[in-house]
């Protein structure tokens, strides 16, 4: 007999084979992380039902099986390897296996050189990811598959990691996109993620085998893989058991299962893991803590007929919808807090209808909406005001603590913190897409472990040795928890550990505080997650300060909105909100289209309401709403892009075409090289402006999935150029950038400097096209002039030294002219903005942030707010070199520091920094830029961008910035 045990991240699988290697028993069950108990149970079951005390060949496999196998001294088979063993036996002739598990994605190439690929530590789980998304859609995995079968369209969802995708899906839900379409889009994202992350340039073709839970259970997922790969894959019999089968086949040592099971029992008795002090030293300490927090309350009065005019605040959040009714004295009359079930509109309608029914003759004086769905709800129900959520929270916090100087809000999916100085929001921290999770993570986790979230959180309060889970994004936390469980941590200690991690994430990842004094001493905490007393306690302990948690911690946005409405309307005002009759006739139709107005191709969601009013979301500019193109005369980003696109191919004397990829530093050096080659008599063609399609074209050849998005786009540009019939592609390696004398050195970052090497090593197109990626330093003009002819001669032997010299002169002249144009236009925009009394925003990034696919039209969003946009390089020459606390050695970043310094001297100029996810250099530059700005009394705003197309969070941040600026200058 042979036994194979496969312990995965979420399920446990076991097979028993008889001596003819026939399957006599198999099981597939969720273990809810009770790995030891489950493993023991299954082994004893097999022992008594099949082996009756006899020994059997046994091997253990699976990501959660490793430590366990070691401890009970049973041989361990790496799971991918086990899959291969099984496939070789059961499905000979297979070329490629795609296996998705609870948290792993694997691709195995079996023919033409065996290779196995697993997802990197950043790619997140796939099965767990689908589960998480199903939870978000309020569906079971089966329901989600069914819904996806009805889909008519697919949305673009970031395919990097679960948390990113989630922030793409949430707005879709909020905007009312159809669940079926979202479900299918989720499966497609999984497909893209698997291919982009794992295939890494190797084509998947031939006989493809689908294994693992998600691929077995979802027909749509299989269909998506088939369509994307242009194959017809099969999901074989026992597709869930391949790893276990492989382990059984591989097993070469006999064990008594009874003994193994006993060894497991001993193992579970040892609880060795890194722990932290308990949250409460004693019951009494808890009671004091509890009593203290019960004091922060808003008076609640009965909602009687004599309540007078009322103000309503609606906070349409990412996962919940909150509504508060207050009277003219700010007393709370009514509250509602419920999940938004994917579409907040019907819920608001229901609550309003009930209000009208229960309170005939109700005088509604104002309705104010806030949160993610602010605009949608405002338009649907004709609310009076819309308020950016940060300001709503601040307004509410002031009610509890007039001198509040720091607010932290941990909600379902987002975390917001802001510092308050002189009565205005002086600094905002929003969690970047990679560390979100917070509340909804705790919830998903509780569910995965089989608990209700409240029950789960309460478990942690009196844990004796909370697990130390560290602080990082939730995807990583998943595996830390698994590890802790294996080490024998109790559920209580894990619960407490998770609560502490949420706090550490907020403090060290989002705010990056190093001491409580830095944040302020008067802190209000809010958001639903702080109802969890373990999180609250962990926060106080970590910060070493007593904070105020209002009893309406989860309703602060709505309450603040109501207060705002109250302060805005005069006595006797009647709200414009829908009347009971209108509400009865209310209807909402949702359609979604792709805007064809410009190259951004925004995915628009159009809500049409009963009164014919349309609400469009997902747009970056006003064009789909007003039909007019945005005014670009105040947008230096648009101007810079236009300048570059003006460099058209010119037929040359040599009758040869040079291709230049429009990526990374070419966004600045195109004028230089275009002029250089055109002067030499070459025709210069550039790859087209980046697009989603272009990115996907090259995505399969990206070797490192954690490189920054602008670099990854380069693969698509090479693929495009290869189709344009060029004689050579020119993209030199440049350790050094131009030297503008602003810093101690003038490097490029390693990625910009050497990315051509990666392209040369990984893009199959370049095997057939000569690729010039020599090392060049244009900051040493004399040496460059001397060396370039030789380098060029390797590819074009007929080019003479004299010709190159002339071309180099032309190139430098053109580059200088280009930079001068940018600076001139910058000056014009600044003058025009000043004449029109507009704010000027320095949207500071690097040259390639001009790429619309990289900046996602953020420049347009800023224009929409009525401000002008200039670039960092248009003003960086206006300050003298100065000393920075970090080593100032990268040309692009020297400009950033200089621009920040210049901003501090201009009252109407503020800086917003664009940061590409994965940019290691920006880990250094962001803190420095923040300090330069804050020293000069300016707000610092950072926007982290990736392939994500959701701009909801960006918009909130920008609006908060403008609200804070208005407050500061007394315009509010």
């Amino acid at each position, binding site marked *: 007999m042979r036994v194979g045990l496969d312990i995965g991240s979420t399920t446990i699988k076991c097979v028993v084979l008889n001596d003819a290697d026939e399957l006599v028993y198999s099981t597939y069950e969720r273990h809810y992380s009770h790995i030891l108990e489950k493993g023991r149970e299954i082994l004893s079951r097999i022992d008594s039902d099949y082996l009756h005390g006899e020994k059997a060949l046994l091997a253990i496999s699976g*990501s959660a099986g*490793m*430590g366990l196998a070691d401890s009970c001294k049973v041989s*361990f088979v*790496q799971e*991918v*390897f086990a899959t291969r063993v099984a496939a070789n036996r059961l499905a000979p002739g297979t070329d490629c296996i795609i296996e998705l598990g609870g948290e792993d994605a694997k691709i195995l190439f079996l023919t033409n050189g065996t290779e196995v690929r*697993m997802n*990197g*530590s*950043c790619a997140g789980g796939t099965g767990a990811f689908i589960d998480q998304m199903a939870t978000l859609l309020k569906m079971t995995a089966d329901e989600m598959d069914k819904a996806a079968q009805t889909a008519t369209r697919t949305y673009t969802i970031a395919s990097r990691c679960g948390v990113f995708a989630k922030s793409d899906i949430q707005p879709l839900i909020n905007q009312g996109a159809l669940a079926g379409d979202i479900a299918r889009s989720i499966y497609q994202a999984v497909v893209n993620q698997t291919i982009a992350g794992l295939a890494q340039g190797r084509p998947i073709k031939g006989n493809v085998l689908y294994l693992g839970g998600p691929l077995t259970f979802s027909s749509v997922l299989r269909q998506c893989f088939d369509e994307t790969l242009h194959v017809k894959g099969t999901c074989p019999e026992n597709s869930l058991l391949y790893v276990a089968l492989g382990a059984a086949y591989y097993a070469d040592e006999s064990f008594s299962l009874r003994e193994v099971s006993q060894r497991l029992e001993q193992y579970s008795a040892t609880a060795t893991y890194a722990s932290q002090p308990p949250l409460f030293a004693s019951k009494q300490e808890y009671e004091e803590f509890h009593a203290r927090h019960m004091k922060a309350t808003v008076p609640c009065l009965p909602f009687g007929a004599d309540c007078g005019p009322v103000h309503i605040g609606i906070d349409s959040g990412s996962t919940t919808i909150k509504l508060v009714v207050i009277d003219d004295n700010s007393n709370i009359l009514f509250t509602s807090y419920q999940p938004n079930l994917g579409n907040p509109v019907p819920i608001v309608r229901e609550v309003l209808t009930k209000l009208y029914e229960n309170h005939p003759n109700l005088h509604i004086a104002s309705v104010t909406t806030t949160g993610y769905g602010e605009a949608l709800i405002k338009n649907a129900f004709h609310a009076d005001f819309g308020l950016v959520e940060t300001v709503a929270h601040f307004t509410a916090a002031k009610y509890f603590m007039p001198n509040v100087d720091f607010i932290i809000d941990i909600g379902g999916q987002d975390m917001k913190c802001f510092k308050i100085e002189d009565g205005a929001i002086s600094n905002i921290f929003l969690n970047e897409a990679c560390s979100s999770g917070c509340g909804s993570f705790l919830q998903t986790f509780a569910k995965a472990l089989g608990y209700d979230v409240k029950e789960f959180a309460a478990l942690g309060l009196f844990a004796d040795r909370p697990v130390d889970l*560290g602080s*990082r994004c939730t995807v*990583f*936390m998943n595996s830390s928890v*698994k*590890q802790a469980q*294996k080490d024998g941590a109790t559920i209580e200690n894990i619960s407490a550990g998770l609560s502490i991690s949420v706090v550490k994430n907020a403090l060290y990842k989002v705010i990056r505080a*190093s001491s409580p004094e830095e944040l302020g001493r008067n802190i209000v905490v809010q958001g639903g997650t702080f109802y969890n007393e373990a999180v609250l306690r962990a926060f106080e302990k970590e910060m070493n300060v007593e904070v105020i948690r209002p009893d309406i911690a989860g309703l602060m946005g709505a309450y603040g909105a109501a207060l705002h409405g109250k302060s805005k309307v005069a006595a006797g005002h009647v709200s414009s909100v829908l009347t009971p009759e209108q509400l009865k006739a209310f209807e909402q139709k949702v359609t979604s289209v792709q805007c064809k107005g410009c190259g951004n191709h925004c995915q628009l969601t159009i809500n049409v309401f009963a009164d014919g009013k349309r609400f469009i979301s997902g747009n970056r500019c006003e064009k789909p709403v007003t039909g007019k193109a945005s005014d670009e005369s105040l947008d230096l980003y648009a101007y810079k892009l236009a300048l570059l696109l003006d460099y058209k191919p010119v037929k040359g004397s040599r009758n040869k075409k040079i291709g230049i990829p429009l990526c990374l530093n070419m966004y600045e050096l195109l004028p230089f090289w275009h002029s250089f080659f055109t002067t030499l008599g070459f025709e210069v063609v550039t790859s087209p402006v980046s697009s989603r399609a272009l990115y996907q074209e090259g995505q399969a050849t990206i*070797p*490192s999935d*954690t*490189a920054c998005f602008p670099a990854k786009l380069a693969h698509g540009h090479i693929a495009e150029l290869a189709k344009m019939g060029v004689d050579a592609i020119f993209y030199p*390696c440049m*350790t050094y950038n131009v030297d503008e004398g602003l810093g101690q*050195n003038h*490097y*490029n*970052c*390693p*990625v910009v400097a*050497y*990315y051509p*090497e*990666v392209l040369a*090593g*990984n893009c199959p197109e370049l095997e057939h096209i000569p690729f010039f990626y020599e*090392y*060049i*330093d244009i900051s*040493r003009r004399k*040496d*460059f002039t001397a*060396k370039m002819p030789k380098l060029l001669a390797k590819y074009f032997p007929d080019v003479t030294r004299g010709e190159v010299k002339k071309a180099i002169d032309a190139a430098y002249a053109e580059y200088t002219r280009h930079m001068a144009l940018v600076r001139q236009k910058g000056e014009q925009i600044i003058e025009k903005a000043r004449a029109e009394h507009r704010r000027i925003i320095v949207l500071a990034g690097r040259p390639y942030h001009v790429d619309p696919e990289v900046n996602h039209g953020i420049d347009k969003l800023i224009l929409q707010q009525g401000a002008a946009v200039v670039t960092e390089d248009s003003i960086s020459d206006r300050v003298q070199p100065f*000393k*920075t*606390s*970090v*080593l100032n*050695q990268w040309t692009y970043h020297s400009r950033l520091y200089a621009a920040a310094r210049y901003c501090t001297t201009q009252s109407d100029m503020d800086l917003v920094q664009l940061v590409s996810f994965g940019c*290691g250099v*920006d*880990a*250094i530059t*962001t*803190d*420095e830029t923040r*300090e*330069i700005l804050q*020293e000069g009394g300016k707000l610092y705003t950072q926007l982290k961008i990736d392939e994500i197309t959701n701009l909801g969070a960006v918009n909130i941040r920008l609006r908060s910035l403008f609200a804070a600026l208005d407050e500061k200058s007394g315009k509010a």
Partner: protein
Amino acid sequence: MEYTTPNFTKDMIHTHKILIPNMAVTQFRLMEAALEKEGYQVEVLGNCGSEVAQLGLKYVHNDTCYPALLVIGQFIDALNSGKYDLDHTALLITQTGGGCRASNYISLLRKALVKAGYGNIPVASLNFSGLEKDSGIPLTAKLLRKVIAAIFYGDLLASLRNQVHPYQNEPGAAEAMTEKWIRTIQGWMHEDKYYSAHDMKAKFPDIVADYAAIPITRVPKVKVGVVGEIYVKYSPLGNNDLEKFLESQDCEVNLPGLMGFVEYCIANYTITQKLYGGNVIVAGGADALLSWLDSIGNAMNAALRKYGFYAPGSFRELMEKPKGIVSLGAKMGEGWLLTAEMIELVEGGYANIVCAQPFGCLPNHIVGKGMINKIRALHPEANITPVDYDPSATRVNQENRIKLMLAVAKERLQTGAAEAPAVTAEDLAGGAPSVKTTVPAGM
């Protein structure tokens, strides 16, 4: 904004204890002895544990590379410990310079110190690139030579230990031998003995012979090479005790020596001058220095081969390895050296490679992960797995990936490796394998 901490001055040599973060354990223990003899009071930090990473996270931007988090966390943890007289303690940090963000470690350290309330602690920089002229640690020529000797001897001991340990008949024999030699060489350092090139060349065979006398039984074992970002490659704190883990999996481990990195830094002066122009005298000086170092390295390798141990080729040969794969112009971080070491390992019979880097390490996107495809195309037997390290990447995950690599390696070992002939140390005793890479025309 500037964060200033006092510079390390000459007077402090006698008054201050210098704390050094741990990296390459053996090499650093010898260096410690060299510094002590010259009057420096030094301590290579041994504190680890979760507190170190937590402090790093607290005081350094969380997206900064893992080595910076750990090194700074380790310093602050040490200062917090109460073990040191804070008025007489200084910190030494190495700086590589160049376009990698690692050249910013010292700025990040200063900032963290000020934030943590240790703004009075002097910081010294150890670098060969002329950065931080005011805070460079004062080194005499004699001391510098001793440091070089410490690295050479350390590399040799580490290499020997790793080649004997998996095959030793008596558990602990290689370890005991290494301890013995560390103490012996520390003694030499204290007595100002045997640190000259000439003496080193004479001593190498003695050391190797001693190891060769340890009784061993040669059985085929999976041979694993480790390359990567310098800190994560060597530091057990940074790589979750990678070396020990691999040994526990019954592997022979090969960590290319620390001197390679020093030589790489020196070679880059010449390479940069060749590519872009610049000071010919500096470039020539660097080249001469390289030749001198390489002659010592060659003597060491010859000694190894003489007694049947594996030794890599000379550094000049190593510089030839990346041809056709990556240019020597890629000089940020570990740059071309990392690619070169991978090829050297594959050709030397260590086809199974762990490429260790901090999560999001920029140079390694290029010279590590970016080059694997090309290396595989030229050497189909290459079995390389990149592993990312950061404060929250769990050990389970990392070890699981490594085990996958090892599963493939073990299978090849059993089936007699279809593509690559099994190369044993004895086979290689005659010399390093010749360069087999094909160089496409026009490059």
